[in-house]
């Protein structure tokens, strides 16, 4: 498998360097995860699918699952629309300026999501800066609800996800063979045509890689829908929270966790297959 130009087939001596992180992951990731699997399948020490039955027959869960997929896909799409042009712009800059601009891409990423949510209220809220300006210019009917609804969730999530599109796409654009663009120009192609026929197809594997990272991250979002969304923007993680902390039903919570994990696994599987076969230049 190839993700934006890094070959993943390692030699034996190279895999040795992976060992420390592998041990760490087994300890802090695999062990707790097996507990989650255990809780979901052995509610009282005995094998039972009751947790899964309970969850899968729950109408609320079904609607929230659908909701989660919809929100994740939309947030990923918006992030792609916003992130791709940024990556293109960054690719055209001198390395020194690019470094400065890249840190600007990362700045929101380093800021606490709680702080950002509060900042978004000040910017986008009913009495926020943007709405005050709209009302001042166009009158009271111009006031728009931008947070505490779906728009708010998408704004909040994209704000977090854009770097996950920008960096793979940027790495890809920088690695693209400049001769191909030159050749296309010599053959008389215009800049839009070069972009669409030469640059975009080559960048597809990175786009796909970025999108599946966004998608997988989105599926587990918790704080942003809680703070920026309305009540209809509940996502799976919020339901897990309900079962874990409020009703103490860990069997159901674990079952939902397993479903979420399988869903993420499915997304990764599907998109890695797409990325393998994406674009005529992907197997160099």
């Amino acid at each position: 498998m190839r993700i934006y130009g890094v070959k993943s087939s390692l030699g034996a001596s190279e895999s040795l360097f992976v060992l420390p992180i592998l041990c760490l992951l087994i300890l802090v990731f695999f062990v707790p995860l097996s507990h989650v699997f255990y809780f979901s399948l052995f509610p009282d020490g005995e094998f039972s699918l009751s947790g899964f039955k309970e969850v899968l027959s729950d109408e609320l869960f079904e609607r929230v699952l659908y909701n989660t997929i919809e929100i994740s896909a939309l947030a990923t799409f918006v992030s792609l629309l916003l992130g791709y042009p940024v990556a293109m712009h960054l690719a055209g800059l001198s390395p020194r300026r690019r470094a400065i601009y890249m840190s600007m891409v990362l700045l929101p990423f380093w800021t606490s999501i709680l702080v950002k949510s509060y900042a978004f209220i000040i910017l986008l809220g009913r009495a926020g800066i943007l709405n005050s300006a709209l009302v001042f210019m166009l009158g009271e009917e111009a006031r728009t609800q931008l947070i505490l609804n779906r728009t708010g969730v998408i704004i909040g999530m994209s704000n977090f996800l854009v770097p996950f599109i920008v960096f793979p796409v940027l790495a890809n654009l920088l690695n693209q063979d400049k001769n191909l663009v030159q050749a296309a120009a010599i053959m008389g192609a215009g800049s839009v045509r070069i972009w669409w026929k030469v640059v975009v197809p080559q960048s597809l594997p990175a786009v796909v890689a970025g999108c599946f990272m966004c998608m997988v991250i989105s599926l587990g979002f918790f704080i942003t829908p809680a703070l920026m969304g309305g009540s209809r923007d509940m996502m799976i993680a919020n339901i897990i929270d309900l079962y874990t902390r409020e009703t103490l039903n860990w069997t159901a919570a674990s079952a939902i966790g397993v479903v979420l994990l399988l869903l993420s696994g499915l997304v990764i599987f599907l998109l890695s297959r797409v990325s393998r076969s994406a674009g005529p230049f992907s197997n160099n």
Partner: protein
Amino acid sequence: MAAPFVLRSAHAQAKRIYIPSYGGSYQEMLTTAFAAPFTKETGVEVVFSGVPDLARLKAQVRSGRPEWDLFEAVSAWLPIAARENFLEPLDSSIVPKELMVTDYYGLFYRSIMAPSWNTAARDNGPRNFSQFWDLKSFPGPRTLRNRADLSLEIALVADGADPTKLYPLDVERAFASLGRLKPSVTKWSEATTQLTTLVATKEVEYSLNYTNRVKSAQASGMPIALSLDQTFITHEYIGVVKGTPRKELAMQFLAFALRPDRQAAFCELSSLFPGTPAALAMLSAEAKKWLPDLDKPGHIVQKEAWWLDNQEDIQKRFQSFMFS
């Protein structure tokens, strides 16, 4: 004779007990009113660690090595913890019997929830729950917590039910009442702080908020007010965690925390309603300003016992209700 005594007190110096807390100014108040004076009196250090969370308590008790020695939490969590066998029975030789609510926990304080509004946006807000439900007199968006156990009783009283005869709750009537309010509820707040911040930023016009939150928001200059004419009273209980190796110290702290003078000191700082009745007589006039007059009719006192068996199903229904 002196030597063993010195040894024992030196040993006590190293002793610590662990309690979860909500952090921030709340934790500072706990330190001033309870932890620091307890350390002074007994030499036992009180360490605050983590946020009260029933799931964490469950995990700790299951593991057999609890991190916390005491547990204090809002509404039904302590009754649930007692039922699930996460708590030690209180030792009546240390904790006075009259301070025990049940054999497993005492009343740490009461939280008071009441209608609040932004004073920069309007002079007067809803003064009781039926006014809070009155969309004609008080139009505009509002926020409530996203919890059934902080909404259903209020919804019933707003609909005209007698606050003294609420239990068992008429769940259908409560949801019908909430359904009428729902179009103006732009946010079912996920966190208690949102009840303050959404009003302060004029995102909503009104919220059902806590007296202590409004008091500290006012102290930091936020234009927010609250009416004590009619309030919803929930209980914060405190108990000792099952299996703690420092059971006796934990019992001592619990008895200390429920002492009238400590309760009064905490109320002066926090304006949370004292759990121990004798503390009321010790309060300053300033502290009393933030306490509702419970002798007047109309206040709702929550019965957690009813929620014990109903919370899971009703909270799920509440989630569906908010979602649709």
